[in-house]
C-alpha cells in the first residue's frame, strides 16, 4: 500500500503544479471524482495528466483506460499494479 500512497501523493502534486488546481495537494481527496462534478477536469486536462504520468512512470494511458480515471484511488491502483507487473 505504501507505493500506492506515494503515487497518490505524486498525483495530487501533479494536479496542483501541472494542472494548476487552486488548492493544496492534501486537499484533493483520493475519492473525489476527477471529471464532471468532482474536480471538473476536462479533455485537455486529461491529456496533461496522461503526459505527466507517462513522464513520471513510463506508463502510456489512453481513452481505453477511462474507467481508471474515476478518482485518484482508481488511478493510483492502476499505476501501482502496472508498475508491479512490469517488474
Amino acid at each position, binding site marked *: 500500500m505504501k507505493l500506492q500512497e506515494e503515487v497518490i501523493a505524486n498525483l495530487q502534486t501533479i494536479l496542483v503544479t*501541472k*494542472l*494548476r*488546481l*487552486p488548492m493544496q495537494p492534501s486537499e484533493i481527496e483520493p475519492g473525489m471524482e476527477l471529471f464532471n462534478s468532482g*474536480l*471538473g477536469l*476536462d*479533455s*485537455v*486536462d486529461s*491529456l*496533461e495528466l496522461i*503526459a505527466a504520468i507517462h513522464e513520471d512512470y513510463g506508463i502510456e494511458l*489512453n481513452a481505453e483506460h477511462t474507467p481508471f480515471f474515476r478518482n485518484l484511488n482508481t488511478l493510483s491502483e492502476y499505476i501501482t499494479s502496472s508498475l508491479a507487473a512490469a517488474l
Partner: protein
Amino acid sequence: MRNGKQCVVTGLGAICANGADAEVFWNNSIQGQNGIQLISPEKLGRDITGWYGEAEEVISLAGNGREYRRMDRTSLLCLKAAEEAVTHSGADFSRMDRQRISVVMGSCTGGPSSAERMLTRLLGGKRLSPYDVLNIPIHATAGHIARHYSLSGSVTNIANACAAGAMSIAYACDLIRYGQADLVIAGGADAFAKLQFGGFYALKALDASPCSPFSRSEGISLGEGAGVLVIESREHAIGRGAKILAEVLGYGITSDAYHITAPRPDGEGQIAAIRLALEEAGLAGAEIGYLNAHGTGTPLNDTAEQKALEAVFAPEEIAVSSTKSMIGHCLGAAGALEAVITIQALKHQQIPPTIHSGGNKQSRFNFVPDTAQPGSFEYAMSNSFAFGGNNASLIFAKNSYNNVKESLNKQRVYITGIGLITSQGGDIAAYWKNMNDADTEEAMGMEATGALVPDSRLAAEGISPAYTRRMDRLSKLLLFSGLGAIRDSGLEMDEQQSQDTGLIVGTSDGPADEIRSFLEQLLAKGVQAGSPMLFPNTVYNAAAAQLSISQRIQGCNMTVSNGIASGLDAICDSFEMVRARRHQVVLAAGVDEYSDTAHLLYDTLQALGRHGEASLSKPYGFTGDGFLLTEGAATLALESEDHAISRGACLYAEITGYGRSYQFCAPGKIDPEGTALDLAILQAIAMSGLCLKDIDAVVGFANGDSAIDRMELRSYGRVFGRRAEDIPVYAIKSRLGEGRAGISAVQVAHAAMLLHSGERPAPQRGSLQPSGTDSSRSSKGFNTILVTSFSFGGGFSAIILEQTPDRRGEQS
C-alpha cells in the same frame, strides 16, 4: 452602412502540398492526388514519424530582392500566392488609387520559425537579430504584401487560427461593402512549425496515417501553404475590363462560446454561421450544389460538422468534400486555399474528392469518396471552424450578373460601456482620478509596468479559479476588461442577446510568453514534449475565445493583429459591424501583456529607453529615446442607436468616423513625416461629416520616444495648421506607458470618458481655452475628440468621437 456593391473574385493564387500555383493545385486535387507525405525527419529533429502536407522547399518568387532572405517562410508563401493572384487579376496598381487598395491576411502563428531561431540563439547565449523579432508576429505577413505593391489602404492581419483564411475573405468583402476599398488582396498563410506540430501532437489530434475525414476520422494531418484572392467591387472589375471568376455572395461568422479546443457537439454554432451566410446570399440550403467542408478528420469535428450539415442540407441534394484530405490542415491558410478550390470547382463544374475514404458508410451524405464527380451547380459553400469555436461560412456564386445586393441605411453607434485594466487601476472611477491627478515630474515606479489581475479578483467577479487556472495572462487581462464593459453597460446577456453580440479583439503581440514557454519545452525535450494545456493558449485568438466562452458571446468573433493600433482598429471594425447592422452590440477590445518575452522582443528592436531606470520620458518633451513597455486592456461596448435607446442605456459618446492608412516603414523605424497619419485623420473627418475646425481635442499616441512624438505633432501641424498649437492633446501613455493594443483601446475609452464627464483636465500639450464657442453646444466639456494611433511597420489609424448631449446619460 452596407452599400449595394457586389464583391467579385478576379485573381487566384495558391501554394501547398498539391501544387505551387492555383492551376496545378486544382489539377492535382481533381485527380485526388495525395499531398500528405511522411515528414522530412530533420523538420522534427527527432525520431518521430509524422505525416505532413509540405509545399515546395524552395519558393520561387518573381523578383529576387534582398528582402526575401530576411522574410519568414510564412511571408514567402504568402507573397508567392499573392503574386500569382495579382498577376492573374491583371490589376495594374499604378493606374489605381493605392489608398483604396487594402490587404487582409490570416495566419495562425505568423513566423514561428523565426521565433524558434530566436529562442535557440537566446538559449545558446548568442546575439539576437531584430529581423527575427520583426518576423515573429502575425502582423508581419500583410505588411510585406502592402510594401511589395506600395499600397496605402488599410492593412489587417486576422489571427483566428484555423478560420483566419476564410475570415480574411469575409473581412475583405466588408471593406468593399462599407465603402473603404475598391480592391482587396485577401487570404491566409502558414508555414511548417515545430510549435504547431508539437501542439497538435500534445493534444493527440494527429492521425497516425494520412487523415481520413468523414471516414476513418482518426485525427488530422497538418499542412502548410498560402491561398490568396483578389477581390474587388463588381463595377471596379468591369470598369477595368477584368475577368470575373466568381462572386462572394455572403458570409456568416459565429462563435460556439463553448470550449477552447472542442467544437460544440450539437453543431449549433456551425449551423448558425451557415444560416447567416445563406441569409446574406439570399439562398436556400437546397441551392448549394457543393460544400467544401472544414473536414479535418478528428472524430469530434467530423461528428459535429455532420450534425450541422444534416440540420441545413438534404443529403441527396449536395456534394461535400474535404480538401484537407489531400493537402492537410493548413491552419491560417486553410480557409483561403479551400476558397480557391471552391471557386475552381464552380468554374470547371467538377467536384474534387475526399480521399483516404474507405470506411464509413453510415452517413447519408455524398462525400465524393476518392474520385472527382461532375457537377452542375451555380452556388458553392466553404466552411472553416476554428479552435475556440470560431465558425466561418462563405458562399460563392459562379455568375455575378443577376445577383442584387441589398443596401442598408446606417445605424448610429454609441459607446455604452467601458471596462479596463491598466497600471492606473481597473476601476473606472479610480482610473479617472489617477489619470487626472496633477502630477508633473514624478518618476513612475516599478508598479507602472504591471496590471496583473489576480485570480482572486476574477473570482470576486464570478469567474471560478477552476476556470482561470487554465488561462494565460493575456486572457485574464481581456476577461477582466470584458466583464467590466458588460457590467458597466448594464446589458443582460440572455440567449438572444448573446447571439446578437459580437466580439472583436486587437492585440499586437498576442500571448508572447505562452508561445515562448511552449517553444522552450519543445526545444529542450523534443517535439513530443509540449504541454497539452499550454498549446491552446499559444494562439492569438485564445483570449477572445476565453472571453466569449465565459460570457457566452456567440456572435462574430474576430481577433486582429495590426501592431500597436490593433485596439483602435478593433474598435473601428466593431463600429462598422454595428453600423452595418450585422449585430446590435459588439464588444471591441484591445489587449497586450507585459512579460519578460515582450520586453525581450522590444528590447531587441532597441525600442526601449536606454536611459537605464524604469521611468517614463515626458511625452513631447523630446528628451526620450525609447518608451516604457507596459500592459493593459480595455473593452468598449458598442451599441446601435435603436438598441441603446430602447433599453435606456447610458451613453458615453457616439463614434462617427474613422480612417486607416498605411505607409511602409523600414523595420523598427519611424517615418519622421508620418504623412499617412494625415490621410487617416482626413478620412475620419470625411466619414464623420465634420470639418477639421470641429475637433476640440486629441487623445494621441505619444509615448515618450521623441521620434514618435515628433512625428505625431508634425502631422497635426499639417492637418490643423495654426490651430495645432492650441488643440489640447492628451498623451495617456505618459501615465500608462506603451501598452500597445491595450492602450490604443484605452485611448478611445479615455476620449469617451472625457466627453461624458464634461471636464477639461490638463492635457500634456496645448492650451485649455475652449476654441470657439457655439451657443447650441453649451456644455463646458469637449464636443468632438479625435483619437490617433500608429503601428511599427507603418499603419496609422484615427477615430472620431462626439458628445451626446441630447441623450439620456448619467455620470458613472
